[in-house]
């Protein structure tokens, strides 16, 4: 299959002995998706909490292996990537932004050092000023700067600042594919708009493809090319984002759309004015 940047073919991931001591958990249950190399796009995944979105992302990042099915990036089966050289080459091209910024940084490590190490390892830079420039450029694209970050540890930043550092870090190696797991959930509406615009810009100007996992259907609506809705490890509906969100077909997709809270205190659906308090 040529022409695919990413080809996820019927992947399954089970966990045994974990949560439900005797039963196996099937976190991802036969999901397929394909991103075209010639047409960079923002592919959004939304769905139920616990439906396997992060598990799917970790498989695409080659952090965990599928129990069944295959994932190919640029035609290479991820299962065949073994040597540390091949791993590094893969990591340069596929970068993650994780769900919880408080978990994705080592609390003992200074953020500027972290970014510099990324510049050295992932972007192959060796000159200290070039490394600092690359870090500063990446930080500025998310509304921060190296001067603000220098010498600071993860706990010294607010949630939104830390998440933006995570995004900046992912941009340093100029990847072809970004896997962004809820990148804006801790960011205010105004900054969120700037970051979402940045993602769009990356797609349009630098031809970066983006897998965007989110619970925010309003931003999903306007930045996504395609969308996939997951529940219990399966894709229940997928297609052109606006078509799906304007007129969802699957009952779960419909429920999801109905449950979006309105930013209008006159139309409360939780709380004081009675309303439905069940899901």
């Amino acid at each position, binding site marked *: 299959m040529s022409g695919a940047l990413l080809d996820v073919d019927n992947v399954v991931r089970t*966990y045994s002995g*974990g*949560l*439900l001591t005797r039963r196996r958990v099937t976190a991802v249950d036969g999901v397929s998706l394909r991103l075209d190399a010639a047409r960079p796009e923002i592919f959004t995944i*939304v*769905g*139920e*909490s*616990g439906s396997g979105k*992060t598990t799917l992302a970790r498989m695409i990042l080659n952090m965990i292996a599928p129990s069944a099915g295959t994932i190919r990036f640029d035609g290479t089966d991820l299962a065949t990537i073994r040597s540390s050289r091949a791993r590094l080459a893969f990591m340069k091209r596929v970068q993650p932004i994780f*769900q*919880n910024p*408080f*978990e994705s940084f080592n609390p003992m490590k200074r953020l500027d050092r972290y970014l510099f190490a990324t510049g050295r390892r992932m972007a192959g830079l060796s000159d200290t000023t070039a490394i600092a420039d690359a870090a500063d450029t990446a930080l500025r694209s998310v*509304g921060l700067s190296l001067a603000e970050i220098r*010498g*600071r540890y993860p706990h*010294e*930043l*607010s*949630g*939104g*600042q830390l998440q933006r550092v995570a995004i900046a870090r992912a941009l340093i190696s100029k990847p072809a594919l970004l896997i962004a797991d*809820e990148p804006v*959930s*801790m*960011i*205010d*509406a*105004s*900054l*969120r*708009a*700037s970051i979402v*615009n940045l993602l769009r810009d990356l797609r349009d100007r630098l031809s970066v493809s983006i897998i965007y996992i989110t*619970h925010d*259907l*309003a*931003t999903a*609506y*306007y930045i996504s090319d395609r969308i996939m809705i997951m529940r219990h490890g399966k894709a229940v509906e997928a297609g052109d984002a606006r078509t799906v*969100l*304007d007129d969802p077909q699957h009952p779960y997709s419909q*429920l*999801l*759309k109905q*449950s*979006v*809270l*309105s*930013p*209008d*205190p006159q139309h*409360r*659906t*939780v*709380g004081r004015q009675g309303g439905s*308090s*069940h*899901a």
Partner: protein
Amino acid sequence: MGEPVLVVSDLRAYYRTSAFGIEREVRAVDDVSLTIEANEIYGLAGESSSGKTTLIKTIAAAIQPPLEVLGGSVVFNFRDRRVDMHGVDRQHLDAIRWKNLSYIMQGSMNVLNPVRRIRHAFVDFAFRHIGKPMPLFLAVVREHLERLHLAPEVLDAFPHQLSGGMRQRVTIALATVCRPDFIIADEPTTALDVVVQKSVLAMIHEIQRELGSSIIFVTHDMAVHANLTDRLGIMYAGRLVEEGRTADIFRAPRHPYTAHLIASLPRLGDSAPKKGLDGAPPNLAEPPSGCRFHPRCPRATERCAREAAPMASLAPGHRVACFYPEPERSA
């Protein structure tokens, strides 16, 4: 209305660090005053890094260096006692934690101990407050988890075996199972899908109503504020800049920052993102002079660059820190 449950007066809390021999003072909370009544849900919103987390850390007395409280006070009137949060010792704070006051920290899904099963967290924090023998206690916990759409089996799981949203609900369960008088929650529902989020908010609301307790709820999600909170405080660059009834703030925001915030709310069906604020968020180590919003404010004059407007009442229960507030709009 009786005595307020929480009175925060002129609170000032800075981070003081020195790196490379350079002293840095981040003025994260500057002269904030507010009161919260019994049976009230108070929402806190504002720009990223405006000091919301620092404010509630200071209110909960979860203060660690380099954070320092430089002035002001925080006094709670719980059902059974009155507590000056910065005047009591650690033991006293431990006694009220979980029972009177519980605090769900931002990103708290990672405070769960990674090598212990979830069950132990409940036993450690809640067992002695619930005052029931172990089997009954566990039954209470299971029932509570069910209200948050979590299977009882999560008690036997390790944190890494749960999804982000499941961990977030576990911390909400921990903070609510003892039914405290006062709950402080910092972005507690960011990792939840909208269906689960709605029922979690309903559960929080139900507990609040049953007990007449009070909640401070911090989130960027303005739709959550619109649906849950009674009053809303808006922070910008370390200061409270507007406060009023939630309905009034949404209908007629008076501070220019709030007006921008409300105007930029995304709605499902928007075909383009709303415009972000021009200019960079202020650096709180060197905040702008006068009103900290003036460099980005469409209504600013020279006076705003020199002086900061104090919080003043524009209408009963509606305070704004601005010399030139947005005109009042009728519904």
